[in-house]
């Protein structure tokens, strides 16, 4: 992307119909380290690649628990992601306080993105005028106020409610969609390819298979680098299982079992190759 005369503020359209600032914000998401999410009928798994600013520092936190039944993974500007996660937490807590029940997951992405959907009755709407308490309004409103900027972070929202398991992706543009599986961040296309091949089976996956698929997808984004439990974070939420990050030891065990399976498959492949070389082609 090159600088041009239409990209100074977010309220300026380009003649071709772009809001460049919004596109730049989405670019920030693409530059962040990868995050993927996938769901089955009963569980949702999130996995992220751990990236550290330097060898001396700890890695960025990319997975946030929003409530017992909802968690998010972010890609992009971590600071923006933290602000949004804190907002989502307060949305959940407010709902639980008034209604004594968990916020339905489908009612979380809209506040995080659009200003046009009715979120609450008039006497419940927060009366803060100068900074939108409803981040909801934020993603979209941030693209409609010249003194604001879009959030430079994409959110993968994973949660469970009485209508089932859900995975949503919130984009800086204000769009959000529900997904069976999705990947964002750098080299996410490799993960998406893997997920596209396999997603039809996900609904009937068990919890363990889901986690394995998540790790396989993360592996794709590493492009040859070794997958270890230190270089990724995996979190899961399910029926009767509150959202939590899975500990490193368990993840390493899953990774090891994945390697064994791969090596076994490779061996089998080698054996078959030998056999076929013996059976020489019949044509001359």
């Amino acid at each position, binding site marked *: 992307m090159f600088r041009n005369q239409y990209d100074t503020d977010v309220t300026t359209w380009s003649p071709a119909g772009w809001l460049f600032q919004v596109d730049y914000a989405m670019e920030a998401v693409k530059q962040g380290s990868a995050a993927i999410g996938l769901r089955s009928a009963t569980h949702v798994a999130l996995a992220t690649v751990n990236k550290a600013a330097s060898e001396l520092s700890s890695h960025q936190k990319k997975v946030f628990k929003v409530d017992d039944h909802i968690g998010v993974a972010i890609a992009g500007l971590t600071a923006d992601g933290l602000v949004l996660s804190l907002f989502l937490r307060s949305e959940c807590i407010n709902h639980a*306080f*008034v*209604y*004594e*029940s968990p916020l*339905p997951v*489908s*009612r979380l992405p809209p506040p995080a993105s659009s200003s046009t959907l*009715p*979120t*609450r*009755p*008039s*006497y419940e709407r927060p009366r803060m005028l100068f900074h939108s308490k409803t981040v909801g309004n934020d993603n979209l409103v941030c693209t409609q106020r010249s003194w604001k900027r879009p959030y430079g972070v994409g959110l993968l929202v994973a949660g469970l*409610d*009485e*209508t089932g398991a859900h995975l949503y992706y919130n984009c800086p543009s204000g769009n959000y969609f529900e997904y069976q599986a999705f990947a964002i961040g750098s080299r996410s296309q490799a993960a998406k390819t893997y997920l596209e091949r396999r997603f039809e089976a996900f609904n009937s996956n068990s919890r363990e298979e889901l986690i394995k698929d998540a790790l396989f997808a993360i592996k794709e984004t590493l492009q040859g680098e070794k997958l270890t439990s230190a270089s990724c974070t995996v979190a899961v939420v399910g029926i009767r299982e509150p959202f939590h990050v899975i500990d490193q030891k368990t993840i390493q065990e899953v990774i090891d079992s994945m390697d064994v399976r791969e090596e076994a498959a490779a061996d089998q492949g080698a054996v078959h190759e030998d056999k076929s070389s013996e059976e020489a082609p019949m044509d001359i």
Partner: protein
Amino acid sequence: MEKKEKAILFFKSDTEFGSYGSTLRYKSVERIKAIGKHTLLGASGEISDFQEILRYLDELILYDNMWDDGNSLGPKEIHNYLNRVMYNRRNKFNPLWNSLVIGGVKNGQKYLGMVGMIGTHFEDNHVATGFGNHLARPIFRDEWSEDMTFEEAVRLLEKCLRVLLYRDRSAINKFQIAKITDEGVTISQPYSLKTFWGFSAFKNPSKGAEGSW
């Protein structure tokens, strides 16, 4: 008063409610209303405050429906919401002068609870407002059971209502019974219970003291 059994909930109230001080002025006021798909609300106390509460709930259900996403507010959510409203009004020294009973069935789970005008709230298998607490609940405690049939439940409610009719001077013999299951809500037309007043002691009320009444 209200009762739970299996996957059905019962409400019963007398339709007299529009009292004007101690005058039983308006004899056909419906005090049980359906809220959304899953809940019934019954109230005693100040009717205008009840109507205000219904307006709040109308708006709440409207927004719930506008999401159009397969989720809906159930009786537990409505109960807690009303608790918040009542308690906050009480804190401002401007209470909504009602005792509310909220009951309902959602996905096979039944729920019954009460909220008072100062924000006291609880859940139970049987609740009542006003005099019902003193006259009906002891009967419930003795005779309610988890696996009552529909007919048994109606009979028990009618028994309690009859007691209240005889003993509460501000009750009239005109009742409605409401039933809620997963399929939906039905609120009956008003009807009367059979009563017996032919006691010999009533025949000559001033027998023991001429000139009195």
